[in-house]
């Protein structure tokens, strides 16, 4: 039996997974990166010993799984020690990686260190699209990683991030997955926060694209049942009800940033007037149970109408606080993607623009800048805007100008 800190019984509601953003450094510059726009520097990253303590505290709190992510988690030179310590603490260890820094010896060392599950992210089914989206030549290396994984005992998930520029590639993506050793595929539409929010007008698929993709995915799920778990995440702007974001605020998940701040979700730092405890200063259990931020939108007392009297409030927990802020200006509002939201027309207006066949000039992301020097420049340099499209051309066919995610200092 493990000793429990301060003789406290495990709390009734405890997080099931700890998302450990080990670093914001990354060789890719994806235009929909889920990291915040203010990236944390290498100097501010937590050292190995503090991460090891956090993993032990997480297990005491009831956490079952650790998601080692980034940025690119393999950019940490102590990644093997981090995998070992997470596993030794008693966690199921997931690594969410681009695969770029991998070679066969490194892969073997990770598995020997206790890695349970490797999730490889893909930007498309072909090098050209993948390079445009990630600003890096990376696709061929990912295919190499898949060939190495075939002969090794580790669970493999392929994560395809879907949007308007690659949604037509689903058959190619599925073919890559079927020829690999993956037991799981995620077709995850981009969610619109941070970098993706800035690039939204270039990423959001049209209704007809989405419908076709969902029909394809449903067929794949049926055909591959028992062989590959095929999971699908829709862009919630098209949904009738909001997603239960993070399984509810402060209910299932805890995210630790590279510098040690504990967050209820990836984007929470955009919400004004929240303060974030740091794992350097306060034990995880205390942060989870007692910090003002984790309690802020927990439960129902903070909800407004129509959520507070809605039958679905225990299903979707009023949706996403960050999306409410981004689209309505109020983080406590009903997530405006909900068809019951008094502000749903804001989402509908965005969809009308995206689905309009006679397009206005493509919106250029205001901060558009080429990827800074360092790991490379975008393989596909940003193009200028394009007022020349014909009236019948769908927005889906038009070239895009991207705001690439840079590398932190």
């Amino acid at each position, binding site marked *: *039996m493990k000793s429990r800190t301060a003789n406290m019984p*495990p709390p009734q509601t405890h997080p*099931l997974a700890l998302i450990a953003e080990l670093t914001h450094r990354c060789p890719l510059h994806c235009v929909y990166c889920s990291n915040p726009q203010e990236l944390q520097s290498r100097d501010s990253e937590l050292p190995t010993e503090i991460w090891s303590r956090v993993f032990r505290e997480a*297990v005491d709190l*009831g956490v*079952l*799984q650790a998601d080692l992510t980034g940025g690119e988690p393999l950019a940490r030179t102590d990644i093997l020690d981090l995998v070992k310590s997470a596993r030794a603490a*008693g966690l*199921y260890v*997931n690594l969410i990686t681009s695969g770029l820094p991998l070679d066969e010896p490194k892969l073997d060392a990770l598995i020997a260190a206790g890695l*349970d*599950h490797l*999730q490889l992210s893909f930007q498309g089914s072909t090098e050209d699209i993948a390079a445009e989206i990630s600003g890096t030549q990376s696709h061929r290396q990912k295919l190499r990683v898949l060939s190495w994984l075939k002969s*090794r*005992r*580790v*669970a*493999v*998930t392929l994560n395809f991030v879907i949007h308007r520029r690659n949604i037509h590639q689903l058959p190619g993506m599925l073919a890559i997955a079927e020829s690999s*050793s993956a*037991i*799981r595929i995620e077709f995850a539409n981009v969610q619109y926060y941070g970098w993706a929010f800035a690039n939204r007008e270039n990423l959001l698929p049209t209704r007809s694209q989405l419908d076709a993709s969902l029909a394809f995915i449903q067929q794949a799920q049926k*055909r591959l*049942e*028992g*062989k*590959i*778990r095929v999971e699908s995440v829709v862009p919630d702007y098209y949904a009738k009800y909001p997603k239960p974001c993070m399984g509810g605020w402060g209910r299932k998940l805890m995210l630790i940033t590279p510098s040690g701040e504990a967050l209820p979700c990836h984007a929470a730092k955009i919400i004004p007037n929240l303060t974030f405890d740091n794992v350097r200063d306060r034990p995880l259990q205390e942060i989870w149970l007692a910090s003002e931020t984790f309690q802020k939108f927990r439960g129902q007392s903070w909800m407004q109408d129509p959520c507070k009297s809605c039958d679905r409030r225990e299903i979707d927990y009023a949706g996403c606080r960050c999306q409410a802020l981004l689209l309505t200006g109020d983080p406590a509002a009903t997530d405006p993607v909900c068809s019951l939201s008094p502000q749903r027309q804001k989402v509908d207006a965005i969809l009308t623009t995206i689905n309009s066949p006679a397009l206005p000039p493509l919106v250029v992301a205001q901060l558009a800048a080429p990827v800074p020097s360092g790991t490379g420049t975008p393989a596909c340099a940003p193009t200028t805007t394009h007022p020349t499209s014909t009236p019948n051309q769908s927005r889906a066919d038009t070239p895009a100008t991207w705001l690439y995610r840079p590398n932190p200092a």
Partner: protein
Amino acid sequence: MMDEMTLDHASKPRLAPGVRLGENNSQRVLLMPERALRLMGPSLEIIERCDGKHTVANIVADLQKIYSKAKPEKVAEDILGYLQLLQKERALDFEP
């Protein structure tokens, strides 16, 4: 194409790569990508036999002995249902 997955009773189920037993708060759990299944009583006894050595038929016979007061066909039905659920989750490989 089959409408329902069928299990070969002579095959030997084995936990798939990246699927393993874990423990949390003295509770046994089956850990796998993005999932954790709580195990108790019969489910744990089934999982412990998914070792690539017991056939499906062996597992059924073992549990029919352990749960000798239950109807044997009910025990068999429950086990097959549970193995199918695990197969759907991709938690098991079935070795010939």
